[in-house]
């Protein structure tokens, strides 16, 4: 998506929707986005409510649903929900930890044409992954991956949230993914949800961010579906988003039907409505938090030479680290280079 006037105009509906279908999970990952967020004790949408939302997404021509959780497959009626979305022609992507996949389940998933699966794995090796996702999780996740590959499920990727613990293992993860015929996808670690409490322990250093930027620039086949655009090298400018899509292209629904501009912005001030009480269309068009996000300008970034690559970066990272949405992404490459230049007056900032 390029920065053009129509991407700044109000779309009739989201292009895709992130839907945390359940908060139930059988792992306790240290950086979990969904930990400690949402309304405590809130009831999850039942099947009829989920089907009603899918009907509305179909009417609005939302192209894609990204299901996450919690662990979606722990929800007993999740396959029925998935199949219902598929029956509407909506592309579905499921983010799973892979531990509950079995042969029968994979066979049913194989029959779904427009289904993509991301299996979360936070290290190429057991020790690293288990430090983040819990003891014994690597072997269980790998069993799920092996099942997908051996049963011939072709449309899946291994997804790693990049932290300082697993940063060095990205090439190994990529090799592992290729061995299974899978893609590699990297997610940005953000200080939201459970990530707030471990940010200082797990976030990348400046040098690591620079190295990651160079690595991504030379590996266009590695997918980065979310807000890595703050550190994107120019080599990747034609790939994916170059600006925050929250409330412009996408939004997020939590297990109880609460709607937020983005899965990473689930604080109370971003609560835009609830699909059990309002239509998604009215929330999309009229809610205060969505209007606020669409009007967001990070003016201090607008004169930056990298502005066309990132438009100020991820507002969620800025919000949780600085308390302001209008602050430049604190992990922005340009900011780093300027800081480094200030610390070392002899060095020059490179484009």
């Amino acid at each position, binding site marked *: *998506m390029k920065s053009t006037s*129509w*991407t700044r105009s109000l779309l*009739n509906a989201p292009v895709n929707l992130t839907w945390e279908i359940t908060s139930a999970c059988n792992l306790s990952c240290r950086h979990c986005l969904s930990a400690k967020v949402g309304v405590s004790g809130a009831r999850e949408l039942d099947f009829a409510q989920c089907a009603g939302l899918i009907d509305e997404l179909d009417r609005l*021509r939302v192209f894609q649903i990204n299901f996450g959780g919690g662990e979606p497959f722990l929800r007993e009626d999740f396959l029925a929900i998935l199949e219902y979305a598929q029956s509407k022609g909506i*592309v579905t992507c499921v983010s799973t930890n892979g531990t509950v996949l079995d042969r029968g389940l994979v066979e049913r998933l194989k029959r779904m044409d427009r289904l993509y699966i991301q299996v979360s794995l936070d290290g190429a090796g057991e020790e690293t992954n288990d430090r983040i996702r819990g003891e014994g999780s690597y072997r269980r996740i790998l069993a799920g991956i092996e099942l997908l590959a051996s049963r011939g499920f072709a449309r899946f990727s291994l997804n790693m949230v990049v932290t300082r613990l697993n940063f060095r293992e990205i090439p190994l993860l990529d090799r592992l993914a290729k061995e299974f015929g899978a893609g590699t996808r990297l997610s940005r670690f953000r200080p939201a949800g459970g990530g707030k409490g471990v940010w200082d322990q797990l976030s990348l250093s400046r040098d690591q961010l620079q190295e990651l930027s160079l690595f991504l620039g030379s590996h266009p086949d590695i997918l980065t579906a979310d807000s890595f655009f703050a550190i994107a090298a120019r080599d990747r400018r034609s790939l994916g988003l170059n600006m925050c899509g929250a409330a412009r292209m996408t939004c997020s629904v939590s297990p109880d039907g609460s709607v937020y501009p983005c899965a990473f912005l689930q604080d109370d001030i971003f609560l835009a409505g609830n699909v059990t009480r309002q239509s998604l269309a009215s929330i999309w068009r009229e809610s205060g938090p969505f209007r606020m996000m669409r009007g967001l300008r990070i003016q201090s970034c607008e004169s930056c030479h990298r502005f066309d690559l990132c438009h100020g970066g991820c507002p969620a990272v800025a919000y949780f680290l600085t308390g302001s949405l209008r602050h430049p992404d604190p992990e922005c490459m340009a900011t780093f280079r300027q800081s480094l230049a200030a610390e070392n007056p002899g060095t020059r900032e490179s484009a």
Partner: protein
Amino acid sequence: MRARKESFGLLFYNTENARLTFVRSRELLLLAGDPVHGSILSAQARCQAEAARARRILDALRKKGLIRERPCTGAQ
């Protein structure tokens, strides 16, 4: 490929790679009616000038791979 109407024109979504294509054409909106479920070419019947304009736009979309011609299989 899926598509929907937007205020600026049409928004195409590639179901294979999630790539979006924004086609800025209000003219096409007027002619297309419903781009997914409707018949785009039926608009040609309105008048020759409109049909020629529609053909140019549709050709452009076809060259971009956003739409493809379907062979006519039924009786006329």
